[in-house]
């Protein structure tokens, strides 16, 4: 090679290097025939590298100010008193002693609370966030055991707590339904989720099942679970005239502000909800009675109010996962082909909410079969409104489905992974849509190898070390890709080449603000330290709920839209003197703090230069994300293959999980560091669900009897082994950044993997969660 050739190569390398960094603008929707997000092709930027959480130092130093740490001058504190019957009326309510107690400002009850409309129940409109449509402190009716009946407002929290214990109440009990059996006897209705009936039938599944060479047909039960985020719910609330500001810990600033505005008959712009830090959400940090009671209390006494739920208060006022009873039946040929999948059952809810725990979702697109019969029926109980909890539907649905598949594998004498792969669908079996990105088989293969699945004894109960029976189990986890409409972003570029990205999204500790900064930096061609993310505030345009694992995609799409609008603005500002003069939005990209011509990277102008020439300090653009039409063209899901090893004491029945591995297929992983924590956290929650979590709901009167962290068992350190996680990292060409949300997938499949491992260890099949030792004696 001549010296000239190598110089030429070097020059070419430089150009290619520049092109490699240059990112064209992203398309703002992903429809068939469209282009994927160009960030997917970019291999050497920040995306995919481990980045520590930008909010980490603040939190470690205790400098992040959570909602219960905002302290407006003159603030008073609230303690709630809760009903002790499930249904009926308040007969007498004596608050005299409480009112006379030291430090008490007022006791608010239905008799003196400001008049308020009931909140619009979640799902009834795009901005409705109410837990139910029950009026709050407006009348003497009781609808659940634990309902707030009075709020003591005092100078200190201790004074409020004490005075609360001086309230005397008697009740006139009404007829109530507090047992699942009783609720079922009253009749079931088909569940409706977001307006759609939870029912699918393809072919005659019962007939196919009856005629199948092999079949399993069992009932699985899952209990209630209560939310236990490390940060209990709390809000600090200030009225300034007719302006209401709520410093809250919430997953839905925008919808909450709208709903509360409605409750108090205010215009949307009169309510501001601010929530920069959320100490764990998991679906439980939405709008509940306490924010409304706090706002009413602040109005009543004319002072700022802080309302902090005690841990008991969280159990009484914040709904959790409801109980379910699920039948799963699978019919198969001798070589394992599924003839029929039946997944039906019942979940409890209340007469006043709209959350029918959709446990069939995972089954809808999990496996190919000749016929399907899927449905969720609901029955009504007089209890606290149940709600979302990490992977609502999938978390408990995969327990039933993936246990049943393991049972069938045992019946067929097949390896359970082979059985799953045998029934891998080539398109969505219910909707018929192609999958946008499905690499579960790859996750199974790589996971099985890393875990050492070949060490599993096919015959249950045959591996033993001393008193410990050892078994391995596996299960598929899955969670859909969601991107809800309504997201927006505003990007403001400053003359010192800094970008402020504003999104009405939420940071619950999972790293959203960090990955948003990474992605925005990459798109705008700016380093991380030139990006400032503002979020968690209802005055920011758009609505991005931190739910359904959709934030990452929703933010991604909103930032794309705003970036495109910003580039259009910049080109306008650049004018005729710019080297970019005459270029259109599709002819440029962002790189190195500049706009760059795509086909000639030497043709460029920095943001600073554009702003300087235009004599502007800032340029801003706000834009709505495109409609999420990708979900109409593809069946979009994340997947996991969960592998687990357990040790079960042959003496006591105690189960210890000794190893667990999650092999995930969730599109492109944006930040492996925060992703790993999300996966691990989900798996830990799944282990709790498998082995110990259960809200003890006394069916005689609907009272939660373990409303504390001593008696409600969550896993402790000793329950959790080293958790191994890996991922395919295959980008989904039909999503922003090629990414999927990963907040919920981690919990799915875990309970079944544990139950299946317990079966492999002991030969005992536990179909009732949690798997406590008495079931294994």
């Amino acid at each position: 090679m001549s010296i000239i050739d190598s110089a030429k190569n070097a020059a070419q390398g430089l150009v290619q290097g520049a092109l490699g960094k240059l990112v064209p603008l992203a398309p703002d929707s992903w429809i068939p025939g469209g282009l994927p997000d160009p960030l997917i092709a970019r291999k050497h930027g920040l995306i995919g590298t481990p980045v520590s959480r930008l909010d980490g130092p603040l939190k470690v130093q205790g400098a992040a100010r959570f909602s219960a740490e905002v302290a407006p001058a003159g603030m008073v504190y609230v303690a709630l008193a809760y009903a002790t019957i499930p249904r009926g009326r308040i007969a007498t309510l004596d608050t005299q002693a409480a009112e006379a107690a030291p430090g008490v400002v007022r006791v608010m009850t239905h008799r003196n609370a400001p008049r308020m409309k009931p909140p619009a129940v979640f799902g009834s409109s795009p901005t409705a966030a109410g837990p139910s449509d029950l009026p709050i402190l407006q009348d003497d009716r009781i609808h659940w055991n634990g309902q707030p009946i009075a709020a003591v407002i005092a100078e200190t929290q201790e004074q409020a707590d004490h005075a609360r214990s001086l309230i005397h109440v008697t009740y006139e009990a009404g007829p109530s339904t507090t047992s699942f059996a009783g609720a079922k006897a009253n009749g079931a209705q088909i569940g409706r989720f977001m307006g759609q009936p939870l029912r699918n039938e393809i072919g005659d599944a019962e007939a196919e099942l009856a005629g199948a060479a092999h079949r399993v047909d069992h009932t699985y039960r899952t209990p209630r679970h209560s939310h236990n985020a490390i940060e209990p719910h709390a809000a600090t609330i200030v009225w300034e005239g007719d302006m209401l500001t709520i410093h809250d810990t919430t997953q839905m600033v925008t919808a909450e502000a709208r709903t509360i505005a409605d409750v108090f008959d205010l215009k949307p712009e009169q309510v501001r909800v601010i929530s920069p830090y959320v100490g764990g959400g998991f679906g439980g940090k939405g709008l509940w009675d306490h924010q409304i009671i706090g706002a009413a209390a602040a109005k009543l006494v004319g002072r700022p109010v802080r309302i902090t739920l005690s841990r008991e208060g969280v159990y009484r006022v914040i709904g959790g996962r409801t109980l379910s009873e699920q039948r799963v039946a699978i019919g198969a040929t001798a070589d394992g082909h599924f003839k029929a999948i039946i997944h039906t059952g019942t979940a409890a809810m209340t007469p006043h909410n709209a959350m029918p725990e959709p446990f069939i979702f995972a089954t809808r697109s999990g496996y190919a079969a000749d016929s399907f019969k899927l449905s969720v029926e609901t029955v009504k109980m007089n209890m606290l409104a149940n709600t979302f909890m990490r992977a609502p539907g999938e978390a408990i649905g995969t327990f039933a489905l993936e246990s049943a598949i393991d049972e069938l594998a045992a019946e067929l004498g097949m390896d359970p992974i082979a059985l799953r792969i045998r029934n891998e669908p080539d398109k969505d079996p219910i909707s018929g849509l192609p999958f946008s990105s499905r690499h579960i088989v790859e996750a199974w293969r790589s996971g099985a190898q890393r875990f050492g699945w070949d060490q599993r004894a096919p015959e249950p109960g045959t591996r033993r070390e001393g008193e410990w029976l050892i078994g391995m189990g596996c299960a598929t986890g899955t969670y859909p890709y969601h991107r809800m409409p309504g997201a927006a972003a505003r990007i403001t570029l400053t003359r010192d080449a800094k970008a402020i990205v504003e999104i009405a999204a939420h940071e619950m500790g999972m790293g959203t603000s960090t990955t948003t900064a990474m992605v925005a930096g990459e798109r705008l061609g700016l380093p991380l330290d030139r990006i400032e993310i503002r979020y968690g505030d209802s005055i920011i345009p758009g609505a991005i709920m931190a739910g359904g694992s959709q934030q990452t995609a929703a933010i991604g799409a909103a930032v794309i839209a705003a970036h495109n609008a910003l580039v259009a603005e910049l080109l306008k500002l650049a004018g005729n003197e710019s080297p970019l003069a005459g270029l259109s939005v599709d002819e440029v990209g962002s790189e190195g703090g500049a706009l760059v011509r795509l086909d000639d990277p030497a043709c460029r102008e920095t943001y600073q230069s554009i702003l300087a020439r235009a004599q502007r300090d800032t340029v801003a653009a706000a834009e709505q994300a495109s409609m999420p039409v990708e979900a109409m063209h593809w069946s979009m899901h994340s997947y996991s293959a969960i592998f687990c090893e357990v040790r079960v004491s042959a003496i006591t029945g105690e189960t210890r999980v000794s190893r667990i591995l999650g092999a995930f297929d969730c599109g492109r992983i944006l930040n492996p560091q925060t992703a790993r924590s999300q996966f691990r956290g989900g798996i830990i929650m799944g282990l709790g669900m498998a082995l110990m979590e259960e809200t003890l709901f006394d069916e005689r009167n609907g009272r939660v009897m373990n409303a504390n962290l001593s008696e409600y068992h969550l896993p402790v350190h000793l329950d959790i082994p080293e958790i191994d996680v890996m991922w395919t990292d295959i980008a989904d060409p039909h999503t922003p950044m090629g990414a999927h949300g990963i907040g919920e997938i981690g919990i799915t499949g875990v309970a079944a993997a544990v139950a299946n491992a317990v079966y492999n260890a002991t030969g005992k099949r536990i179909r009732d969660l949690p798997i406590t030792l008495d079931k294994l004696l």
Partner: protein
Amino acid sequence: MTPFRFARAADTADALRLAAGPASAYLGGGTNLVDLMRETVATPGSLVDVTGLSNTVSPTESGGLLIGAALRNTALAEHPAVRARYPVLSRAILAGASAQIRNMATVGGNLLQRTRCAYFYDAEGARCNKRAPGSGCDALEGFSRYHAILGASPACVATQPSDMCVALAALGAIVHVQGAGGARTLPFTELHRLPGDTPEIDTVLAPGDLITAIELPPLPFATNSAYRKVRDRASYAFALVSVAAALEVEDGRVRDVRIAFGGVAHKPWRALTAEAALRGGPADGPAFHAAAAAELADAQPLRDNGFKIELVKRTLVAVLGDLGGAVA
């Protein structure tokens, strides 16, 4: 929490004087009492902090140990003489609560911690004869996983929750008490009582009685002792059942044995029937099984806890098997 007065006792006499009023309570680490005050289950008008009283471990003339009641649980569990000579006690303490709670908890407070029955704790929403005598017992037909299978009454099916106390029952400890009438001692196994018709009374102590120390008698074969706790998660949960045992085997026969159960009754359950059945007999599986069955012959299950009968038997057989193997 109801407002209260607070005083720190300088010595035993001071403590007794300060606690002379009717609504007084001694305060150890507060890990149980303060919780109960928050729940308004306990509403003392004044607290007398006794954590400044004796916390020493000293040898007794008879060759045992005298342990000051203010000693923290962690310190007792880690004491070299306890670990070497009474390992069952060390292990029982370490099986309980969390490191933080054990660092706070005192020996006196551990002895007198109250039941964890959920209905006892729910002052607003549940009936409980222990909390409000005569109001009824919601546990009887309610959640009873953690409740008694031995010695319960229709008035109360609660269990005493301490791990440490199970070891003390097995070791035949002696309680030193200072009361209005002066100092006295009583066998540990007589401290807690069965509920009968008066479940509101946990122990035989009179109001104002102060526990000053626990005495461990010499028990040479307690070097071969163990504690096994069975629970719903690997740590930081109360016992479903637990077994404390010490075993002395000679030529394949049981020379002496001490057994106590936790999580099964209103008091730490000294298994005298099983001990008697074993003493002098063969130290083998069938004998262990028979002894366990004899002790549990009168067990009465509730709705949720029938499994405990089998569980405690198995646990006992396993513990004795381990201890027997260690000697053989």
